[in-house]
């Protein structure tokens, strides 16, 4: 009993100590630099934007734009755990679009939304729009509206550097492949022709760790995402570099808000044409080794 009390007292001291010491300490981001982000640019917000969109009116009323993004994709949508700041290519795209809708960077609230709850949050207006490696496809168009594509990625494989046995999707027979619940490459790799065992997780970073641990042999998702992880750990991981699908990325939003969809499409075109897009690209995705391909304008409308 006495031992227990001492243990409890020690526990309290530990907890208090940890929280008390929270103030102070070194500033800046913890860990290796760069871990997958850092670039940030502000875009001039348009003034007096009048668009007949229910979503936008809600945002204007609250004076804040809520954008759903990813937090665990280096160079795309990445949140620094120590500064809580988001950065990456998708974040830049989100900010460009926000600027044309009349919101400056400090009027944006980013929310981390994992892949498995994207449709749930978008269709129920928990976010105004969503920019996070979101592949446009017909199945999803039944639930959300898409503007874009603003980038085209392709599903690829991330493997351990010393693992030479995996050369492409056709060499996955009997291997463990990890991906995200609800992602398109996962649905592709589940097809019986590949004969792979699949594992599902709700975070990409968890899959990366599984590949490193040997619980999975490969992580499949879009090459743009994978290259970010490979760039973080160049001596442990490599990308197979044989894309086997086309993943056009779009900005997701309420399916019924056509006015917003058109406005976002226009905003994307505007920033592609004025070279904001290219600058953002070279400073984010370009750093992890993805080649720049200019997106075709005008973007499709529906």
């Amino acid at each position: 009993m006495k031992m227990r009390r001492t243990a409890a007292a020690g526990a309290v001291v530990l907890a208090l100590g940890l929280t008390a010491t929270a103030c102070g300490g070194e500033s800046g981001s913890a860990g290796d630099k760069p871990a997958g982000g850092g670039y940030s640019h502000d875009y001039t917000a348009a003034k007096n934007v009048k668009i007949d969109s229910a979503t936008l009116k809600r945002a204007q009323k609250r004076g804040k734009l809520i954008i759903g993004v990813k937090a665990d994709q280096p160079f795309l949508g990445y949140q620094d755990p120590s500064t809580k700041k988001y950065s990456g290519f998708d974040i830049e795209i989100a900010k460009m679009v926000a600027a044309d809708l009349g919101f400056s960077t400090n009027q944006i609230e980013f929310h981390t939304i994992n892949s498995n709850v994207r449709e749930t949050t978008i269709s129920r207006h928990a976010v105004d729009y969503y920019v996070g490696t979101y592949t446009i496809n017909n199945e999803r168009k039944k639930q959300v509206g898409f503007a874009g594509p603003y980038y085209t990625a392709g599903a690829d494989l991330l493997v351990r550097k010393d693992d030479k046995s995996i050369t492409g999707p056709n060499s996955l027979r009997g291997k463990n492949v990890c991906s995200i619940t609800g992602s398109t490459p996962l649905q592709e790799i589940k097809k019986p022709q590949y004969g792979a065992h699949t594992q599902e997780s709700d975070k990409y970073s968890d899959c990366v760790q599984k590949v490193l641990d040997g619980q999975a042999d490969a992580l499949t998702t879009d090459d743009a995402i994978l290259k970010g992880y490979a760039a973080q750990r160049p001596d442990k991981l490599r990308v197979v570099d044989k894309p086997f699908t086309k993943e056009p990325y779009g900005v997701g939003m309420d399916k019924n808000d056509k006015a917003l969809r058109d406005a976002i499409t226009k905003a994307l075109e505007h920033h592609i044409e004025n070279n904001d897009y290219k600058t953002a690209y070279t400073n984010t995705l370009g750093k992890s080794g993805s080649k720049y391909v200019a997106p075709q304008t005008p973007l499709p409308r529906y």
Partner: protein
Amino acid sequence: MSGASVLYDVPGPKTKARNRLYSVIGGIAVLAVLAYLGLRLFQTGQFEPAKWNIFNYAGVRNSIRDGVLTTLKVFAVAAVLSLALGVLLAVARLSDHKPVRWLATGFVELFRAVPLLITIYAVWVLMLSNKDALGMSGDAPQFWALVLGLTLYNGSVQAEVLRAGINSVPKGQREAAYALGLRKTQVMTTVLIPQAVRAMLPTVISQLVVTLKDTSLGYIITYEELLYSGRLMAGNIIAGGDSVYIPVIIVIGSIYVAMCLALSALANWIERRGRRAKTGIGVAEAGDVANAGALTAVVAAEAAADTATDTGN
């Protein structure tokens, strides 16, 4: 260890020697397991200074602190609400009116049967769907979904605990109270509930430990509590060319264990204090809340036999 001494004789010289040998072997075995784990931690490079240096950064510390505070905030609100709901449901289940009793029973049974994770998720989706009607913004839907989910489940469990407690109050007390001319509500609020709460306090607190542990389920709806912050750090920080899953899990884990142990210690302390008091109503054994056997044995509440507290979720 009252049971232990009955199981074996006071050791003689030979047994003493043998036990000493077993102790040494057992001790070595336990130490060997620990040493092996330590060795593996070392071999996989978990003790590299770079990996632990991340905790020297103000940002990391702040996010751990914020995580702890958020977790405690959710816990505090959920604890208060679940106790309130627990009292309400317990009284409703003992009501004289059949429909009220049935409704309460159905409610309790439903929310105890469904995994908390699913309840939280369902409440969250419902809240998102009706977000504007409820006037919520930011991470309010997440917060309330987590709190309400915890409240619904733990409230149902607390209701069963309190009901067992109310049933454990000797019948004579109730009869005496009625004989004095007290009304039904008065009997409940002034005679039965205070004694029930007293008898069941350790069990109630142990269920609160479960509530505290379950706040970690907020990860499923991306609510930024302690475990979520931990997972973000583990996934996004790279130190010394490697991820920091293990150091982060060790640190976050110790914080959770510390918080829960502190709460458990409180339950134990109350239990010991309660045992010294002479009221004729036994105090439930805190360590064994999980099991109905001990519970019923202590409070002699046969009626609660079927429905005693749930094991930690």
